[in-house]
C-alpha cells in the first residue's frame, strides 16, 4: 500500500485509478462483517432495503409484518465487546400499531430521492403511503386497485415527483405527491407488474417488468410503450455491431419484426392485426381487404398487440446500470439477462445462476468498478462479473431465502435481507491497519541484544 501511495505522489498512477484500485480490492474481499451489525426490529421477512441517495447514510427497510424502519449506517447506537462490534439499532419504526400504518405486508419502501424528509411505502393492503420522516406520520395515501408489488421514484427527476407503482393490476399507475392524484395510467401489460424501475439516463423513461414475462419501456410524455424487449432479438457482444444491417435475427415476411424502430413496428403490428381478421385469399388480395376492414386502434395502444416476452416466467427484478446503457432483468425461469437499452437487444451474457426465487420480487444491485452484479439466489448471494457472467463471490450467511441486496458504494458494503428477518452487513475483509502492518519489513525477532 505504501508503494501505491508513493506511485501516486510521483504521478505514476493517476488519482482515479489509485482510488479505484483500493475500492476494487475491497469489494472483491467482501465477507460477513464481524464489526457491524443491524439489530432488526422486524418480525416478518424483510422485503425491501434502500440506502438514501443524498448522503448514503440512512438505510430504510420494509418488512412483511407491515413495519418499516430506518437505520443510521455510519454511526452506531451502541458498542459491544469493548468497542469492537458496532450495533446499529433502528432510529424509528412505523408498524401496524401506528395510527395510519399499513395493515398487511410492506413490499417496497423507498426514500424520496431529493432529501430524506419523506419516504414512500407500498404494501399488500392496496395502499401506497408517503411518510414524513421527522414526525413519522403518513401524510398522503394513494389507494391502488391491487396489491402493490413495487414502487419507484426517479433519482434524476428535475420536473416531476412521480411515484411509479406496479401492482397486481395490469396497469402501472404514476402518483403525483404534489397534487395527491394519479397522473398517468400506463396500459400494455397482460398480467400484474412485479418490477418497476426508472431510467438512469432520462427522467421520462420508465422500465416495467410484468408477471407475463414482458419488459416494457415507457416514455411518460407519450402514450403507450415504445419498446418491448424480446429475448430472441439478440446481439453478439455488449455493443451492437456498427455498419451492419441490424435486422439479422430472422428473415422477415413483410418486415414483420424489423428492428428498425418503433414506428415501423407499430405500422406492421397494425397490419398484422388486421391481417388476422381476413385470413383467406392470396397475399395481393389481402392487402386491399386489410385496408377496407381496418379496425381503428390508437397508435399508443398498438403495443398491446406485441406479445414478445423477455423471460419464460415472471420478471422478478430489474436494475439499470448507473451509466444508463444496460438493463439487468431477473426472471422466475432462473435466468438473468443483460439488455442493451439503446438497441433493445439481449446481449446473451450467461449468468451462472442456479435457482432464483420465483414467487416474490427480488432486488438486484450493481457496482460500477469492478462491474459486478449482486443477486440473491435462494439462501446465498452470488456476485457475477457483469460482462463475463462468471461467479466471483458466493456469500453465505442467511438462514432462509434472501430477498434484497443493496450495495453502498461509498463504503463498499453490501446489505442483504431475507426471510429470516435479518439484515446482514457484508464488509471488506481485513482492515487498513492489517495491510499496513503486512507491508513493513518482517523483523527478525531473534535479533536482539541486551
Amino acid at each position, binding site marked *: 500500500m505504501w508503494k501505491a501511495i508513493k506511485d501516486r505522489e510521483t504521478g505514476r498512477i493517476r488519482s482515479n485509478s489509485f482510488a479505484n484500485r483500493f475500492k476494487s480490492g475491497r469489494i472483491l474481499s467482501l465477507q460477513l462483517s464481524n464489526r457491524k451489525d443491524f439489530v432488526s426490529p422486524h418480525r416478518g421477512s424483510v422485503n425491501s432495503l434502500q440506502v438514501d441517495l443524498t448522503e448514503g447514510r440512512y438505510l430504510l427497510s420494509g418488512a412483511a409484518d407491515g413495519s418499516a424502519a430506518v437505520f443510521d449506517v455510519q454511526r452506531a447506537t451502541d458498542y459491544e465487546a469493548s468497542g469492537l462490534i458496532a450495533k446499529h439499532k433502528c432510529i424509528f419504526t412505523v408498524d401496524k400499531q401506528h395510527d395510519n400504518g399499513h395493515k398487511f405486508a410492506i413490499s417496497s419502501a423507498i426514500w424520496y430521492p431529493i432529501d430524506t424528509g419523506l419516504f414512500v411505502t407500498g404494501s399488500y393492503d392496496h395502499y401506497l403511503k408517503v411518510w414524513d420522516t421527522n414526525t413519522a406520520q403518513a401524510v398522503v395515501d394513494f389507494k391502488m386497485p391491487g396489491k402493490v408489488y413495487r414502487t419507484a421514484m426517479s433519482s434524476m427527476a428535475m420536473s416531476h415527483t412521480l411515484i411509479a407503482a406496479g401492482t397486481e393490476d395490469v396497469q402501472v399507475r404514476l402518483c403525483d405527491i404534489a397534487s395527491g392524484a394519479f397522473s398517468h395510467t400506463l396500459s400494455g401489460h397482460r398480467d400484474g407488474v412485479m418490477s418497476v424501475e426508472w431510467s438512469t439516463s432520462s427522467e421520462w423513461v420508465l422500465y416495467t417488468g410484468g408477471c407475463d414475462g414482458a419488459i416494457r419501456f415507457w416514455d411518460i410524455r407519450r402514450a403507450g410503450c415504445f419498446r418491448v424487449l424480446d429475448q430472441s432479438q439478440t446481439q453478439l457482444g455488449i455493443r451492437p455491431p456498427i455498419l451492419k444491417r441490424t435486422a439479422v435475427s430472422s428473415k422477415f*415476411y413483410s418486415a414483420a419484426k424489423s428492428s428498425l424502430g418503433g414506428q415501423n413496428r407499430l405500422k406492421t403490428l397494425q397490419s398484422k392485426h388486421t*391481417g*388476422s381478421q381476413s*385470413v383467406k385469399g392470396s397475399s395481393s388480395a389481402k392487402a386491399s381487404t386489410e385496408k377496407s376492414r381496418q379496425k381503428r386502434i390508437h397508435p399508443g395502444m398498438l403495443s398491446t398487440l406485441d406479445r414478445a*416476452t423477455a423471460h419464460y416466467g415472471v420478471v422478478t427484478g430489474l436494475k439499470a446500470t448507473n451509466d444508463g446503457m444496460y438493463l439487468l432483468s431477473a426472471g422466475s425461469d432462473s435466468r438473468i439477462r443483460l439488455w442493451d437499452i439503446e438497441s433493445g437487444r439481449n446481449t446473451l451474457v*450467461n449468468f*451462472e445462476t442456479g*435457482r432464483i426465487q420465483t414467487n416474490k420480487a427480488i432486488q438486484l444491485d450493481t457496482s460500477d468498478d469492478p462491474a459486478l452484479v449482486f443477486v440473491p439466489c435462494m439462501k446465498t448471494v452470488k456476485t457475477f462479473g457483469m460482462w*463475463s457472467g462468471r461467479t466471483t463471490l458466493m456469500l453465505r450467511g442467511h438462514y432462509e431465502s434472501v430477498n434484497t441486496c443493496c450495495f453502498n458504494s461509498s463504503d463498499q458494503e453490501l446489505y442483504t435481507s431475507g426471510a429470516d428477518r435479518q439484515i446482514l452487513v457484508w464488509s471488506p475483509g481485513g482492515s487498513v491497519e492489517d495491510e499496513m502492518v503486512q507491508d513493513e519489513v518482517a523483523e527478525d525477532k531473534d535479533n536482539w541484544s541486551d
Partner: protein
Amino acid sequence: MKKRTNPESSASKAKKRRREEEDEEEVGCSHTAIEDQCLPLEDDLTFSDTCVALRMMRAQFPRIDQASTPPFILQSQLYSSVNDRTQVDRELECLRREKVVRVFKLNTGQDDHAIIFLDDYLNQVDRIVKRMEEKRQSDLEVFKWFKGHVLDSKLEPSIGHHELFSLLSLGGKVKDAHITLLINAGLLTRQLIDPDMYWFAIPSIGKLWKGLLQGRNELLSLLKRKRHKEMFLAELEKKRLRFSPLDVRFHIRDLIGSGHLKTVQTTSGLIVRISKD
C-alpha cells in the same frame, strides 16, 4: 489406433478435462468429415468449441430403434462441456442464424432447450411425410409449405398463429385442417405459457421426454441416498437407469450443466456431488 476404432468408450473420459476433450474433438470431426466430404473446405475449415461439442455429443447419442427421433442435445449439456457459458450462448446463436442447427423449447417446466442439426430435422420431416403417404392421408402439401416457407424464415422456437397462417399461405390456400395435420404429426405444439403461440416440436419425442424427466429424478435420488451424497464418476457411469432409454452419460452432462450436480477433482479421480444451493 485404439482411440480411432472406439470413439465412444474413450470419449467417455473426455468430458472431464479440456485437454483430453480437444483430442476427442479431433476424432469426432474425422467421423463426420467422411460424410461431409461434399462440402467445400472453406465452410468447414475452422470449428468453434460449441460446434465441435455439438458434433461430438451427436455422435454419442444412444441408438434407440423403437423411437425414430433425431439425435438431440440439451443446452445444459453444452454448458457442462465448454467452460465459458457466454461463449456457448453466442456461438449457438451464430450457428442458429447460419441455419446449421435448430433450437426447440422442451415442455419440461424448466428452461430446457434441445438442439438438433437441421439436416437431421429435415430428414425426420421427410420420414413423417412418407409415413403419412403410406396411410394415404390427404392435404400433404402443407408439409412442403412448412419446410419451404416456415422453417426457412422463422428461426425462433415459437411462432404466432397469424404469422404461421401468413407464412403457410405463401405456398397456397391454407385451411385449419392443415394446421391440425401439422399438430398431429408432432411438428407443432401448444404450451401453457401463451394460448396464441405455437411451439416447434421434435416429432415423436414423447418417450424420450418422459425418459429424460424420470432419468433425472432417478439419478438424483440415487445420489441422495448415499451417505455423503456423492459418488465417483467412474462408478456412476457404469450404472444403468431403469426408467430412461437415454444413457447415464446424457443425464450426467445435463445435470452438471443445469447446476444440480457438481464435480470435484480428487486424487483418485472425479467425484460427482449433489450441489447444496
